[in-house]
């Protein structure tokens, strides 16, 4: 184990998989950067958040492909390469840009295997940075996993820590299905212990981060560390809870959620996305449908409001569910206040 940032863990996974399998290729805007620039450097960017740094030096421009700003064509490039035997890792600089590429994702990539009779395989990983926290405004801060998890044929994962960042990216690359891999941009510098050497973490399955007796708190991404902060506050009041890191929003690990709920009887879902038709709604529905007899009170959803992500520091802070709001919601679930 070595302490590393999420950014470095992701970078390590890319090196690991590209060394292991020559069919793994990386493509996207500025994944190396510098081509045609006056400095002559071909590792000038390494991706907007530095995740692909150094790849061009070891693997060259045929495997680390700088593309024009053409999101449809980037995903198309990955789709066609995957159908014909490659394992592309495509980067969309910001998850919000998925709108430009949506047809290639939800009408093409997600449907190849099914529509073509099960014979087609499209092992594409689409990496995207997501989430609020950088005051990047309404078109650079969304989470989008709710929207994409609604599409059959896509797997959607949201790592919350450096070990999962490394292990899940490697697993996504080896997976034979399309995987939407969402990296929270406010977590890139978060550090944690990461297994050394070749490391794979399962794509499916939620993780019980901590155990408690009073409630089940289901969350993901940046809301995991925020919920841990809430836990520290509530512990002083004698409230403890099961904290479940979803990791994957498609598929959802229903078993772990329902098992925990059967022990605690109270459910709080913490989700950074907008509330309508969200992962939070989905988990509430699962509880209502399959865990109704365990529920001792209403399910509480802690989400962003039904607004675009606002810009100003004060507004964005209000928009994102923070530790205080999460703690208040859990307190309410447990004490009914």
């Amino acid at each position, binding site marked *: 184990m070595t302490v590393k940032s999420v950014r470095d863990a992701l970078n390590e996974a890319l090196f690991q998989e590209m060394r292991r399998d020559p069919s793994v290729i990386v493509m996207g805007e500025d994944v190396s950067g510098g081509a045609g620039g006056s400095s002559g450097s071909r590792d000038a960017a390494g991706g907007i958040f530095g995740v692909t740094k150094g790849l061009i030096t070891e693997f060259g421009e045929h495997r680390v492909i700088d*593309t*024009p700003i053409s999101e449809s064509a980037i995903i198309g490039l990955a789709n066609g390469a995957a159908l*014909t035997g490659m394992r592309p890792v495509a980067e969309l600089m910001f998850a919000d840009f998925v709108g430009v590429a949506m047809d*290639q994702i939800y009408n093409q990539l997600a449907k190849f*295997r099914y529509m*073509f009779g099960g014979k087609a395989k499209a092992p594409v990983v689409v990496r995207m940075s997501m989430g609020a926290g950088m005051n990047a405004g309404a078109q650079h801060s969304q989470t989008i996993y709710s929207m994409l998890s609604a599409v059959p044929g896509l797997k959607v994962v949201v790592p919350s820590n450096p070990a999962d960042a490394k292990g899940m990216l490697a697993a996504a690359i080896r997976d034979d299905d399309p995987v939407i891999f969402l990296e929270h941009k406010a977590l890139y510098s978060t550090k944690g212990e990461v297994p050394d050497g070749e490391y794979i973490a399962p794509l499916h399955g939620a993780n019980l981060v901590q155990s408690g007796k009073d409630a089940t708190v289901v969350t993901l991404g940046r809301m995991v560390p925020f919920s841990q902060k809430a836990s520290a506050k509530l512990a002083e009041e004698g409230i403890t809870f099961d904290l479940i890191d979803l990791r994957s929003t498609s598929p959802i690990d229903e078993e772990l959620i329902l098992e925990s709920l059967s022990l605690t009887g109270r459910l709080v879902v913490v989700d950074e996305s907008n509330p309508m038709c969200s992962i939070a709604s989905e988990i509430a529905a699962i509880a209502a449908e399959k865990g109704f007899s365990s529920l001792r009170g209403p399910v509480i959803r802690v989400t962003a409001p039904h607004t675009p992500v606002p810009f100003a520091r004060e507004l964005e802070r209000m928009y994102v569910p923070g530790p205080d709001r999460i703690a208040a919601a859990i307190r309410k679930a447990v004490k009914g206040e």
Partner: protein
Amino acid sequence: MQQSRTDILRAYRQMRMIREFEEKLHIENRSGEIAGFTHLYAGQEAIAVGICEHLTDRDYISSTHRGHGHCIAKGCDPRLMMHEIYGRADGLCKGRGGSMHIADIDKGMLGANGIVGGGPPIAVGAALTCLARGDGSVSVSFGGGGSSNQGTVFEAMNMAVVLKLPKIFVFELNGYSEHTGETYMIGSDIVQRTEGFGLPVFQADGFDYFSVHQAMADALEHVRAGKGPCALVAEATRYFGHFEGDPQNYRAKDEVKGLRETRDALLHFRARVTEAGPLDAAELDAIDSEVAAFIEDCVTSAKAGPTPGPEVMLADVYADYQDKP
């Protein structure tokens, strides 16, 4: 480009196969047994066949909603295609695709496509694989005039140029963009527009197999020399509507009749190879009869094919798990 007697016979058979497949579907569609939308390719046979006769299973194509001709020309089994169009469990895509989503990856056929402009970005990705393999294989996207107005196609053309990919963009101009004339829909000259992206354009008469075949030979020489992508533009017509059932109110009364008399790729081919060429009409007549009987049999077996059940519906969404019924 010189072609052997075998080549010519095969090309004619492929064109006849497409024509017969589509004419038969046009008739069968009226019975109501075929579900969904069917877009017929008849009238454009020389383009699909003139291009695909150059290709092997190592080469790739992407197709369109009007995809039957491309599928047959690229080697998809017409019988399995017919079963697919009838929605049978033993169809090429198990009845989950239908007319607009026929694909056979093993044949290098990356799919018909329900989205206009959906195919070219995918074919650009396949060209990346061709380049990586370095075996001279190429990737071809088919599209109509309508698709030439999609931003996805513009993106795909620029991407292919930037990455110097072995990729050929085929534009088949059949005169219409769905229910509206191409002259109205395409706001600039399509050849100039394509050249503006940096793609050399090879032009062909889309009613003439030999013209298309030659243009494709030139296009292949260009991409295989490592000079990057190019385009092939061919004019043709479609004998039927945008989809089966289209009343075609946008067409003058006798337009198709006149085109069938004066501009028919199969008649043109026949005349060319029998009058000045190596074949006699009897050989071609024999192909016509054989293909007609084969297609008839395909329809018969498709009608009798097994209907898919829930296990077909739920399978193959993911590789490693599936939803419960």
